């Protein structure tokens, strides 16, 4: 399966920072798709083959946590690797996200090393 990474954040600046970080790690430019909220992300996920979701928490319309719960309730998305990339740094937030079904959790601001490590771990065992 070719790699496709969906970056979901209501901040265009933050989507670009994540994308540029991955570009500097030699990810090809054509693997990225972007969405500005959970609803837009869900609609993309329904239509496209996405191999990894990098998902913000606090967003309008459908937030990241609600999207995770919706995705994990559907068989098609049970195994989709989801990394929550959020400013929410409290332990109780991390626990809530893990209970909802995220694969991993990264607190903003992102740094290159942790993003690379989280992605590598999340994709381990998948056919990407």
């Amino acid at each position, binding site marked *: 399966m070719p790699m496709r990474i969906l970056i979901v954040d*209501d*901040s*265009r*600046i*933050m989507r*670009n*920072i994540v994308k540029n970080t991955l570009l500097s790690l030699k990810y090809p430019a054509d693997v990225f798709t972007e969405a500005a909220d959970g609803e837009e992300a869900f609609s993309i996920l329904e239509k496209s083959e996405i191999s990894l979701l990098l998902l913000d928490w*606090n*967003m*309008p319309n459908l937030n990241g946590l609600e999207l995770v719960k919706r995705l994990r309730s559907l068989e098609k998305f049970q195994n989709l690797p989801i990394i929550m990339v*959020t*400013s*929410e*740094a*409290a*332990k*109780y*937030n991390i626990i809530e996200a893990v209970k909802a079904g995220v694969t991993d959790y990264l*607190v*903003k*601001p*992102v*740094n290159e090393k942790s993003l690379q490590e989280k992605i590598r771990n999340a994709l381990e065992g998948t056919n990407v």
Partner: protein
Amino acid sequence: MNIRYITPFIEATQNAFLELLGSKPEALTPFLVRREEVLDWDISGVIGIAGEARGVVVLSFPRGLAQEITTILTGQMKTSVDDDVIDTVGELVNIIAGNAKRGLEEFKLMISLPSIVQGDSHQIGWPSGSVPIVGIPFTTPQGHFNLSVGLENIITV
């Protein structure tokens, strides 16, 4: 002045600037903000806090510094307050408020989406009541900015 729980906000601000912009702003002496005060800033990002304490976090910049930070983050020269500058200020206050929760773990807090207030010497509508609003001035080689925090039951003076 006995100010509790200001440190997580100072650390979150310094860490956000260090990670995103490569330099750590210096925090100057905190002060009590007067509610009627008209801010000497051009753009502010505002986050509401709810849960086991109600409050607000406001990050305020002069226009030039907000544009300069956005120029660094986007790689595109910013000469006016456009959507990218607004987005940058909103995302910075979001990161600061979210990261500060790490140092306030004994309270379960929820943060709102950021709002932006713009305009020369604009005013912020602070929460009513006796909650003190603490201002923390920061300085960078490019200029000054300010973080104001008011949290019911948490920040006391």
